[in-house]
């Protein structure tokens, strides 16, 4: 066996790659850094509406992924420096921090990040080889594993949540295991309409904090999509009398979406993400939602809430455009985007979890190889109908 191996080693052509020699305009590291930069406005915006917990989540993810990437590089005898500076895990960490609940206990965040990096990315061969989007797969992992935590540690969007969810307060909850209920009540109280609602519900002053919030949670779920799902389950034409999204929450969702869109448009201008894919995604999402809402108003939300609530905008600009996990052909990418949008609308209406973006993205990722095969381009000189070359 030893002799065979030496021969194989000699055939490794001394580091010279075979043709074709292609020149990339941007290195992978540059692309990843620019993408992280483009995520930054959305990240800061969300941090303003959801508190400092986001930053802690990002730091936990970052440390975990650095450790994991380093360990994998050592195990694989790869260059440690290059593995730790390629920046792809930076994007994964930012996406995870933006999708995970801001007050998730640190050990769950760490396990999520480790799962995303080790099992979803590195087990398939590392950067560029993964089938599934690491951030979304990690999110689903923790979502299915500990759905109780996902809802009890979620912060509703409220203007200026950063002033209530200060670094110190969120640190206590995330690392020391303090009860998140009080902090959640404080953040909820920042939203005037929710404050009135809580006060009405408990029949007492809203300042009695935790009890008011816990009772309010019994009727209004952690996220607005959760409320929508609950209303749909109650049936009797429920989407007509949905729990209305408060004005403050609308502002929060809309401005986050705008901030994300700003980053996404910057990426489009730099030709890092594919414009037609993003356009196809949003057009398909709106069309499917409008059509569905027209046909089954009880089941499917109107287009605008579909777009703003949950992670639809984030997915459109930053997740489905991941060059590794989407389809490989031009037509295929459009089909991929449309398929993902379709799944988002359908799973939101029929799924058992409140938001569907992560599930849709993973299903679309799984379908990407098939899409590639179905949209394969005709080789030159082959396949003419009635021609002699076929």
């Amino acid at each position, binding site marked *: *066996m*030893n002799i065979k*191996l*030496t021969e*194989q*080693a000699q055939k*490794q052509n*001394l*580091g010279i790659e075979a043709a074709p020699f292609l020149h990339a305009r941007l290195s992978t590291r540059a692309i990843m850094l620019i993408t992280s930069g483009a995520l930054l406005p959305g990240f800061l915006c969300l941090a303003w509406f959801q508190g400092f917990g986001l930053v802690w989540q990002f730091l936990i993810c970052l440390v975990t992924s650095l450790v994991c990437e380093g360990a994998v590089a050592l195990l694989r*005898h*790869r*260059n440690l420096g*290059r593995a730790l500076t390629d920046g792809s895990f930076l994007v994964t960490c930012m996406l995870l921090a933006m999708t995970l609940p801001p007050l998730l206990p640190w*050990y769950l965040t760490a*396990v999520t990040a480790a799962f995303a990096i080790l*099992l979803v990315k590195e*087990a398939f061969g590392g950067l560029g080889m993964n089938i599934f989007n690491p951030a979304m797969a990690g999110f689903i*992992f923790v979502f*299915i*594993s*500990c*759905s109780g935590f996902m809802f009890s540690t979620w912060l509703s969007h409220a203007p200026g949540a950063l002033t209530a969810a200060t670094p110190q307060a969120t640190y206590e909850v995330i690392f020391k295991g303090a009860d998140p209920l009080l902090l959640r009540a404080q953040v909820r109280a920042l939203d005037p309409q929710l404050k009135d609602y809580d006060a009405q519900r408990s029949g007492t002053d809203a300042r009695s904090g935790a009890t008011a919030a816990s009772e309010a949670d019994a009727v209004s779920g952690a996220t607005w999509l959760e409320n929508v799902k609950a209303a749909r389950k109650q049936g009797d034409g429920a989407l007509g009398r949905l729990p209305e999204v408060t004005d403050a929450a609308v502002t929060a969702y809309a401005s986050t979406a705008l901030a994300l869109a700003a980053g996404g448009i910057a990426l489009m201008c730099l030709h890092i993400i594919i414009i037609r894919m993003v356009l196809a995604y949003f057009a398909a999402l709106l069309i499917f939602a409008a059509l569905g809402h027209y046909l089954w108003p009880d089941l499917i939300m109107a287009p605008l809430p579909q777009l703003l609530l949950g992670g639809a905008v984030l997915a459109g600009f930053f997740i489905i455009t991941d060059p590794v996990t989407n389809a490989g052909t031009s037509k295929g990418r459009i089909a991929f985007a449309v398929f993902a949008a379709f799944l988002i609308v359908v799973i939101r209406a029929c799924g058992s979890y409140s938001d569907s973006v992560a599930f849709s993205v993973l299903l679309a990722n799984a379908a990407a190889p098939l899409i590639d095969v179905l949209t394969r381009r005709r080789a030159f000189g082959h396949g003419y109908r009635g021609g002699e070359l076929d």
Partner: protein
Amino acid sequence: MNTHFSEAEGAAVPAKKPSLLRTFTRGLWSNNPGLCQLLGLCPLLAVSGNAVSALGLGLATLFVVCLSSVIISLLRSLILREVRIPLYIVLIATLVTVLRFYVEAFYPDLYDSLGIYLSLIVTNCIIMGRAEAVAGRENVLRSFLDSAGCGLGFALVLFCLGSVREIAGSGTWMTGAGALLGDWAAPFETVLYSHDYTYLIAVLPPGGFFVLALFIALKNAFSIHRRNRIENRFRIDSVRD
């Protein structure tokens, strides 16, 4: 990979039978049905949600594979080659039916928790594979040792898989051992940590695939460790990425 090479080389060099010990240990490690042959995956993934039912199914499979191998090996001169598969199936199905009645009578809780997978041992490829590959050709001792190794290897993998999934998914180990396996097993029931730290996904179907994949990776890492070390010595620094 390793086993493919060794089998191919074994085919080229004629007729040197492995030793009896090797016949036994092959099924435990180098040709393990759960980790290497990847046979019997359906029960392996479906029943391994907790350690006790995994152990129950593992023992049942071990029993059936050993007994069927011995019987087939005894009858091998009487079995016509053309109809051997139906005959094997009849034999195995008989054994499984006997076992099923036994479990139903004496361990009703285990019977409930295994459900249809107990009857499905009939179609388990491990048993058919052993009958076809070894028991129909070799003498009784050799086929018994071979099938005992395979069955034991399968039961061990099943038990480890069940343990890991149960510990990660519900924070306990061997729950229901007393009820399912009899009073002797009751002291093994342990609660390791609270539900706050468990990962439900481990006991759900995807968890079975994750844990099995990790087991296979670990096994491969062990068995090709030496080869990897040699390979890495020949790597060229400039091609490292």
